[in-house]
């Protein structure tokens, strides 16, 4: 169930489009494949999340949800809750991967929203 909610934005990203149609369908067909397997340790999850967040930021599409999740993950780790820290850091990584996918999709389809082009 949790995975469904995590992937909900991805479904939204893939399904929502502007006035255009064909490019949106093409983008939906190329929906991003995102690793949802839990990390083995917080250290691993943290490093992977930061790397994914940097990619999204470099593409100019970082989500602030990742920023909040990675902060909460660090707090959970500090308080000794390794399982929660891993889950939150993994979620931060998934959000960042969705943000990067959004960036790629928008780079290809943003003109569909323009009324004059």
């Amino acid at each position, binding site marked *: 169930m949790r995975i469904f909610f995590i992937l909900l*934005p991805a479904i*939204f*990203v893939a399904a*929502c489009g*502007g006035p255009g149609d064909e490019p949106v369908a093409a983008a939906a067909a190329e929906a991003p494949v995102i690793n949802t397997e839990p990390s083995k340790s917080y250290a691993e999850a943290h490093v992977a999340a930061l790397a994914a967040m940097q990619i999204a*930021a470099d593409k*100019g*599409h*970082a*989500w*602030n*949800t*990742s*920023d909040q999740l990675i902060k909460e993950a660090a707090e959970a780790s500090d308080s000794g809750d390794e399982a929660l820290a891993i889950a939150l850091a993994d979620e931060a990584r998934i*959000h960042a991967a*969705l*943000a990067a996918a*959004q960036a790629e999709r*928008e*780079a290809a389809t*943003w*003109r569909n*929203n*323009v*009324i*004059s*082009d």
Partner: protein
Amino acid sequence: MIRTRYSLIITIGLGLASFVHADPDSDRQSLVDYYQTRFPDVELQEFANGLYAFDEVAREQWIAMEDFPPYEIAIEEGEEYFKTPFANGKGYADCFENGGIGIRQNYPQFDTEAGEVVTLELAINQCRAANDEAPLPYLDSELAAISAYMAYTSRGNAIKVIIPDDPRALQAYEAGKQFYYSRRGQLNFACSSCHLQSAGLSLRADRLSTALGQATHWPVYRSSWGDIGTLHKRFRECNVQVRARPFEAQSSEFRTLEYFLTYMSNGLELNGPGSRR
């Protein structure tokens, strides 16, 4: 042979056509036509008043608020800051054409030497730097107050943003246009999702304003801020509202966005500073 040649010409023509997009003036005219069709009872110049152009209830509240406008103090403070000389004896008036009076409508500008968009707030800080003064923080109310005073002296002037004959200027405009139409954040909204496709519709207690006229009235005193702030402060807030990480005020992303957005309001009267809920 002739048929082959014609086919080739048509193929090349169609290929080129797919890469040709509307020029800035066509973009602006398309927006004007779109909103005038959507809001047939609203006069073109009225779009400079944002949602107050078509929301009667909000308009009444706004007009009442304008009796004692909350940005008045910022104008007074801005004038004082503007007229206070720098340590070297010079002042802001020495940095701008016409002594900085009545020029707000010409910003943002494209600096062909530096190859970048210069907003009024950036120009204010460039003026300070040129006179060995420390820059003002871009989200600071002092900078917004100076900008508010300069906007006040420009009221009634028609917005006149120019895209010079320089491919970098058109590139900057296109970058701003791309930003405006690109979905971002976890909520997957573009600026255009709210202010073009959903303009006039209600979002909780507010109605969404139109892209046309969005850049005419800055800086703005927003009741939700309890302070006066710049357009980039609002851009940041929009980013956060769609759950995107906000860009820095005066980042190249926001400057090109302002360039595009203000160009769309060319011809509308500048009416800043303004007040909004």
